[in-house]
């Protein structure tokens, strides 16, 4: 079996625990001064890649784990985090803040990256929690002409480059088998990402990070979609509180309920 060269795309998004607010111009959510971190599904991808190496679950072993992110300079922080978790190297593709790429552009970029790095496995989050597109993995598999297994909850390796992927579907689970090279997207049950340990955080600072631009991949940040308007969901009308039974009765009368 061939040794694995895993490509793990990661995205910097508004932190999962932060409540996003729509910006004043209603063109998107406010990102300035808001805590950002790695897309949670991408953490699962990084964790899974590192586990495949640590548990020696792939017969051919893992030769390389490369993480890649297209985003502003601060995206380097999450690349360092990924390397602290165990990735070997990182590629940062500089994209100006506000010039976000659409899934198709990302897929095109990743295709080139996978080819350049001779990757034979791409593990990526099933979706990013900001756009929730859930498209990039599928488009990438299409562009590369590789098999795809989306929303993986378990990944196992067999002989002759075969990979079994279990995915949860309505009413049970489904197991797919395909041969490398392939694309896998991750779902929540796949694993539990680790905490990066301090020694590994230190080591990650010395791991190589390539800095690239979109032009290096022959991509332009073209937009096929236009955001017309972003609004917050309607505010829930809060309930009132009554002091006692009399208050409740009079309130109900007032509302014509009794």
């Amino acid at each position, binding site marked *: 079996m061939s040794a694995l060269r895993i490509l793990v795309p990661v995205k910097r998004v508004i932190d999962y*625990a*932060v409540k996003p607010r729509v910006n004043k111009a209603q063109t998107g*959510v406010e990102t300035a*001064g808001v805590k950002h*971190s790695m897309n*949670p599904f991408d953490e699962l991808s990084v964790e899974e890649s590192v586990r495949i190496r640590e548990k020696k679950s792939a017969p051919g072993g893992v030769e390389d784990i490369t993480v890649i992110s297209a985003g502003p300079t601060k995206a380097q922080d999450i690349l360092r985090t990924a390397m602290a978790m165990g990735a070997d190297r990182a590629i940062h593709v500089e994209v100006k803040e506000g010039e976000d790429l659409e899934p198709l552009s990302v897929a095109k970029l990743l295709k080139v990256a996978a080819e350049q790095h001779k990757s034979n496995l791409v593990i990526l989050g099933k979706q990013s*929690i900001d756009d929730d597109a859930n498209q990039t993995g599928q488009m990438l598999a299409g562009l590369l002409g590789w098999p795809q297994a989306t929303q993986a909850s378990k990944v196992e390796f067999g002989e002759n480059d075969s990979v079994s992927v279990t995915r949860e579907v309505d009413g049970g689970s489904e197991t797919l088998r395909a041969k490398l090279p392939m694309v896998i997207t991750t779902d929540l049950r796949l694993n539990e990402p680790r905490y990066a340990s301090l020694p590994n*955080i*230190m080591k990650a600072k010395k791991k190589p990070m390539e800095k690239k631009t979109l032009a290096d991949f022959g991509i332009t940040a073209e937009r096929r979609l236009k955001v017309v308007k972003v609004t917050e969901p309607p505010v829930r009308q809060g309930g009132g509180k009554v002091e006692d039974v009399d208050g409740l009765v009079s309130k109900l009368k007032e509302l014509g309920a009794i």
Partner: protein
Amino acid sequence: MASRCTRAPALARLATRGPTAATRLGRVQPLPRSHARCLSTTRSGWLHQTAPRQAAQVKFSSETYPELKRDSRYSQLRQEHVAYFKGVLGSESAIIDGVTNDNAADDIEPFNADWMRKYRGHCKLVLKPGSTAEVSSILSYCNKHGLAVVPQGGNTGLVGGSVPVFDEIVINMSRMSQIIEFDQVSGTLVAEAGCILEVADQFLASKGYIFPLDLGAKGSCQIGGNLSTNAGGLRLLRYGSLHGTVLGIEAVLPDGTVVDDLGKLRKNNTGYDLKQLFIGAEGTLGIITKVSIQCPQRPKAQNVAFFGIESYEKAQQAFREAKGHLSEILSAFELMDGGSQELVRSVTKNKKPLEGDYPFYCLVETSGSNAEHDSEKLSAFLEDVMEKGIVADGTLAENETQIKALWAWREGITESLGHLGGTYKYDVSIPLAEMYQLVEDTRARVDAAGLLGETDEHPVRAVVGYGHMGDSNLHLNISTRRFDKRVEQCLEPFVYEWIQERQGSISAEHGLGLQKKKYIHYSRSETMVQLMRSVKSSFDPVSGHQLSLLHRYPYTSCAEVMITGIH
């Protein structure tokens, strides 16, 4: 970019498939923040909800402590008293009357028992005044008619100070919960005493400010109670004690006199600063009705690091380094021993943040205004302590979810202990150099007595220590499998004597309450006790006749203990 709420359906769908799916993302099933945080200072709202059902099994304090006797000089509650209170309070919801109504027993039970299920009184009347004037009318009437009362906030205390012992009237402050005013420029908040801490903090959050106190029970505890017990909590290291942040207090004295010292000035050197006496008085001097407090700017950036440390000496070094490197952004430095973390793990089944096992763990939190500046300082600190070999291993929270998950390892200790059985809790201040020695000595003593072991025949499961290292405040907890008188005999007065030898305090942040009333002499000299006694009689002259209507029974506070002279 789509709004975050579009993500919710995906997660919600997962949540319906299995109990763990949604929490997977968060890595742990964290104990809910408001429940878990520093329960040692107060109690959990979740436990409170189950209190009425469980309370039936709680032993009456009067049975647990047969040496406590009801003072016969106090009147028994009669219907005419209840009628007067009904007249004062007006609204039906403001009074729970078990005197004339036999069916009210279930409604009264939550006010009678504490959340730890250790203390329970025989109270038959709960009053919930809605204004300072009502509090004043109630107290002045009680004073005249010799009726005993016990003030009660969120009833989250750990030492039995907020529940009655006999048939005292409970004056519950929950209806006085309004936020009165807030000054955007100075950050001064004025609120009624019954305002729940978390409500006040959320209000302040919307203004960009933070309440200078944070603790586990913030979802249930009230700021009046926080002041009365001088609660310390998790951020004392950063924002200081309430003695510094409280600017003014309005209180009602036992005879009904309203003390209006609701100042909003940071500086006021005109005579004695009497409001300070109400802070930590546990309700013995009067009932706090309003509070004005100085609130700091809410930090925009927070970071949390978690360390594994080989020895207590190294934990002290780490604390010194943290102060040196992080100085003004350091907002918490918490110590947990290996035993406490093992208990949390065995209850929550969460994966430990670090690979190896260490005898000590520290949690360091920074709060500042500039995330990059803070990260830079924190990185320098981390590199330094790693290189010098002060910490053996560690991790840094990469996102908000990890921050909460790491905090859960500190905040979840009390709740986890609660799941395992009874716990003897000692909340003590000891000079830092010897702080952990108490845990080791206690463990050795319990072990020597043959009480400690892993099997069922040993009553003690574990002796663990954790606490606010930044404040030299240790929580010594003895987790037991069952109640066994030998354990208590082994611990007391050993623990108190040990602390006395080192000039420590037997109550750092929980108060004396009923639990520690007997032991004040371990931390205060006879002269101090005498002084407290005279302060009490100035505020409550009735006690001159050996009657004191606030906390009439000798259980809630030092002052009370001394006046009645029982110990």
